[in-house]
């Protein structure tokens, strides 16, 4: 990884993509059948999340359809109407409210109306599909922020060294002194206690950002320490490049492989972690489309005749986790210098 040249100029982009796809780690990944199956399933989940408005179409009389200003739910599936684009790219909050078929807590079996049955009156199918969307939405935001913050802090820490590095690294040590879940619970409790009535996504995003950036910073720092003494960096410096350019153009691009590997892995683990949090009741309020509370609902209905209350959410989440792990493990191995 150390001898990879800096990012090629834009004119070579086409061949760069081909180079990337035929590079040794990626070829190794492509030969791994299980990993490819995992990748396909993970991408399917991504599509399910994106096309949630079509797959789990809201009812005609729902607030979601009303807030979108659609005349009928069918409009959501028509790319020629503006409603389609709004539903897919900027769905109003009311669409994330799980459709409620009844107010009886007793589950009802799968039917025309609720394909996976209902739990606490909520439509399980709608909750899972829109929940996928919630999970990916939050994960992308969280990974995006942690990636940027982590890369910047890590690059500064590794490049400048000295007391800046020491300060940042000791701070990370302190953050790592608490298990992620514990730190998340603390932050969420404080954010909720100090801001009553806060949008439920905000404490989650903030808590995961605070706990997440440090791993990226550690990786980037390590890579920077390795690359900053290489000849091409010295060459660029002797040509008069200043620090920000050296870091941005020559040093950071060389650690992107490991950072992006971590980001892909995070896209798989953050949804599960948020689901666990919601399962504990610390995530979203009841009725918000996400996975954890659907599993929590199952706790009260363990008898065999209510199998669907547990089986659908559990199978859905396990499939997601399995797909991401199969792909993620292979990806990690592919870029791990030890296994080359």
């Amino acid at each position, binding site marked *: 990884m150390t001898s990879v040249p800096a990012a090629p100029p834009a004119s070579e982009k086409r061949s760069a993509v081909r180079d990337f796809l035929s590079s040794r780690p990626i070829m190794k990944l492509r030969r791994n059948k299980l990993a490819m199956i995992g990748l396909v399933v993970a991408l399917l989940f991504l599509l399910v999340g994106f096309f949630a408005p079509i797959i789990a179409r809201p009812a005609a009389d729902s607030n979601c359809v009303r807030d979108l200003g659609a005349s009928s739910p069918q409009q959501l599936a028509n790319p020629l109407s503006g409603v389609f684009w709004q539903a897919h790219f900027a769905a109003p909050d009311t669409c994330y409210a799980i459709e409620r078929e009844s107010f009886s807590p007793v589950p009802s079996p799968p039917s025309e109306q609720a394909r996976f049955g209902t739990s606490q009156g909520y439509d399980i199918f709608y909750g899972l599909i829109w929940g996928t969307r919630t999970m990916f939405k939050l994960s992308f935001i969280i990974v995006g922020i942690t990636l940027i913050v982590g890369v910047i802090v890590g690059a500064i820490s590794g490049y400048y060294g000295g007391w800046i590095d020491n300060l940042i690294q000791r701070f990370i040590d302190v953050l790592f002194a608490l*298990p992620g879940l514990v730190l998340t619970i603390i932050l969420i*409790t404080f954010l909720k206690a100090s801001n009553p009535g806060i949008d439920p996504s905000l404490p989650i995003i903030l808590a995961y950002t605070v706990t997440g950036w440090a791993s990226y910073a550690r990786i980037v720092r390590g890579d920077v320490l390795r690359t900053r003494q290489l000849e091409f960096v010295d060459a660029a410096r002797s040509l008069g490049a200043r620090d920000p350019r050296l870091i941005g153009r020559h040093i950071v691009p060389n650690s992107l492989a490991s950072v992006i590997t971590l980001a892909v892995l995070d896209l798989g683990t953050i949804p599960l972690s948020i689901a666990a949090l919601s399962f504990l009741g610390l995530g979203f309020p009841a009725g918000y489309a996400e996975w954890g509370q659907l599993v929590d609902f199952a706790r009260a209905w363990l008898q065999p005749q209510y199998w669907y209350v547990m089986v659908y959410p559990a199978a859905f989440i396990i499939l997601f986790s399995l797909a991401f792990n199969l792909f993620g493990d292979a990806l990690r191995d592919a870029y791990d210098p030890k296994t080359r």
Partner: protein
Amino acid sequence: MLNFIVRRLVQIPLVMLALSVLIVALTMLLTPAQRAAGYIRSDQQAAQLERIIRDRGLDQPFPVQYGKWLQSTLSGDLGFSKSSGQPVLDTIIERLPNTIELTLLTAIPIILIGVWLGTLSALNKDRFIDQVLRVFAVLGYSLPTFVLGIVLLAVLYGYLGWLPGAGQLEVVNQFAIGDLRRYTGMLGVDALLNGRFDIALDVFRHLIMPALTLFIVSSATILKVMRNNMLEALTSDYVRTARAKGLPERTVNLKHARRNALLSIITLGGFLIIGLLSGSIITETIFAYPGIGQWVVQSALQLDVPSVLGFALLSAIIVVVISTLTDILYGVVDPRVRFD
């Protein structure tokens, strides 16, 4: 060697101090009245909110507040836990042994069986048994703890009725524990020491499902790491030398390869116990087991700040002490580490 140990030990109070500054700084997000609420035990006291704020200096600048907080914390006053109805410290003393009992019952089999299966898998690389174990490993760490817990609960309690679904004891035995002399605070162990095998058995039956949940999730990780280490050790020079000397295969595998592969299991064992701490938050909640994990979830749900703070400090101590111990232990078995 002594030097190395002392250097590591000195870090414990330093990290704890830094972390406590961070945690107390978080409480500054709250209003003085909210912070004072953490010390209120009764309705009468609620009327004296102003006095509590004044006495404890809760409207003072941060450094003053931190000093006062440190003073009262070191004297054992961690505030009052609304969720358990008693002081935070008493709650911890009452509940921590239960979590330790669960952790011990889980960690020992995880390490023993994980190491054994990992070695087996590596020695039979690509044979049938290896394939089976690898599938188990992927499944194991792909199963989110909360989903696995609910599935086990549904199968072993809901469908089959083999095991109790919640708590620590049957109602019949709850009256009997008053007669027990408490040596360790761990109910099962104390029951054994008192010769009450019926109670010990009851406690054990309640522990099986939470322990099994943690076991399945965590042993997979140990298995995987042990397999990788073992494979790496088997291709190393010293193993080749041992073979060249004509040593029997068994000696080469167990004395040369496995001993070295076990090295990193020490570090992993530390991570494992820290991981079980997070895992116990989820499993204790699923099975309503009265440990500290279940308590922190209840506290977070009620926005009970002093309890969450107390838990944060406790887990920080556990993490810092355990990682220091593993470092020292690692230094003892692997002299190379000491000279870093």
